[in-house]
């Protein structure tokens, strides 16, 4: 064989290969594009997981396209099939997007429910605690008012027992002449009994002080009466002190015949004027002076 023939043959083969390769690339651009698109959605793990049906439809469409191509289907049929395949890949993408979004929604709904439940529980807790506190406060207030009422009641009862009288200077307890020995400063038994009640009262109300005032009638000299009144007041103070009342709470003064409460002209009036008045202080220990 001559070299020229060899060259000619080689040229022929080369041109044949070229022609064949040209034929091989002949498939429509759309078909290539469709195949690339299908491969890309196949390689997307999210689409494979979330939109398997749509993915299979795209793959089947591509298979049909390939079959049509190998059968030598006409140009318009190939183009149409390629177009449909492209649409299928887009659909698969959107279906996967939808599925992902739906999953987010499902999770978020559960989360929202939890948060709402939590909030409601917290609110209920708070309400319960507020209610509890309010009730406690109400009970406290009731107890306090009850205590105050009880105290006032007790005080009133005690004062009644003491036969104290309300005056503008406060509650005044009067020990009559008959509770003292005649013309003396010694308290007799009847007087002591009354003082015992007073001691009980003072023990119960430690914030209250007493002012003890001695008074006499007009019989006898001023100095005698002054001394007697002072002695009698002092005697009451000593008696109270003996029974445990601190002297700082007791003030004793004598006024002699200065402040009569009845006429000194009659025997009854004189008797009324011979007396010891015990003035109870207010709850702050204060007594209005004469």
């Amino acid at each position: 064989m001559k070299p020229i023939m060899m060259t000619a043959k080689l040229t022929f083969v080369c041109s044949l290969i070229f022609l064949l390769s040209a034929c091989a690339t002949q498939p429509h651009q759309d078909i290539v594009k469709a195949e690339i698109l299908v491969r890309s959605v196949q390689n997307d793990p999210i689409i494979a997981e979330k939109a398997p049906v749509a993915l299979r439809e795209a793959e089947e469409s591509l298979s049909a396209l390939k079959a049509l191509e190998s059968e030598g289907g006409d140009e318009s049929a190939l183009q149409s099939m390629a177009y449909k395949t492209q649409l299928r890949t887009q659909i698969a993408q959107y279906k996967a997007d939808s599925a992902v979004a739906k999953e987010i929604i499902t999770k978020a709904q559960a989360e929202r429910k939890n948060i709402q439940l939590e909030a409601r529980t917290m609110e209920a807790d708070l309400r319960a605690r507020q209610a509890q506190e309010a009730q406690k406060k109400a009970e406290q207030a009731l107890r306090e008012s009850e205590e105050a009422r009880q105290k006032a009641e007790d005080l009133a009862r005690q004062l009644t027992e003491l036969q104290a009288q309300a005056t503008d200077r406060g509650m005044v307890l009067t020990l009559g002449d008959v509770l003292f020995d005649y013309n003396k400063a010694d308290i007799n038994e009847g007087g002591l009994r009354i003082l015992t009640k007073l001691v009980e009262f003072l023990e119960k109300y430690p914030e209250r002080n007493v002012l003890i005032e001695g008074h006499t009638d007009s019989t006898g000299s001023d100095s005698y009466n002054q001394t007697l009144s002072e002695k009698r007041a002092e005697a009451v103070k000593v008696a109270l002190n003996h029974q445990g009342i601190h002297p700082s709470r007791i003030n004793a003064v004598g006024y002699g015949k200065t402040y009569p409460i009845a006429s000194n002209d009659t025997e009854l009036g004189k008797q009324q004027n011979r007396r010891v008045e015990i003035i109870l202080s207010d709850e702050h220990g204060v007594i209005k002076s004469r």
Partner: protein
Amino acid sequence: MLIRRIFRPTLLNRFFLIPFYSLIVSCTTTPPPYEEITRSSYVIEEAQEDGAQTHAPLELRQAHQTLEKAQQALKDERYEEARNLASVAEIEAELAKSKTEAIKNKQAAEDIQESILVLKQESLRYQSVKQ
């Protein structure tokens, strides 16, 4: 007996039947594609009901146009073309539908996440008020 003999599956008989087969096949491939057109109109309607007009207007219009072409081809008795166009219109409508759904679902997901954020903030404020 006679009928059986005529239709006995001999090689000769088979050859005789070929024209009939081809006639039947050609008849089945060329009927007017009413069903295909109806189906694609139905999918287009579904897409519209989903809100494709708002979320995928281009895709929806494309499907409409293809369907109109299919109907024109049907009128012109170009049945094969009409059938093909109808199937294209159906897929185009499906695309409009799936796009619409994707957009709506994404929007809903964003909305609910937003509402959770608001709830969490409220809850935090509530806790700070409580303390």
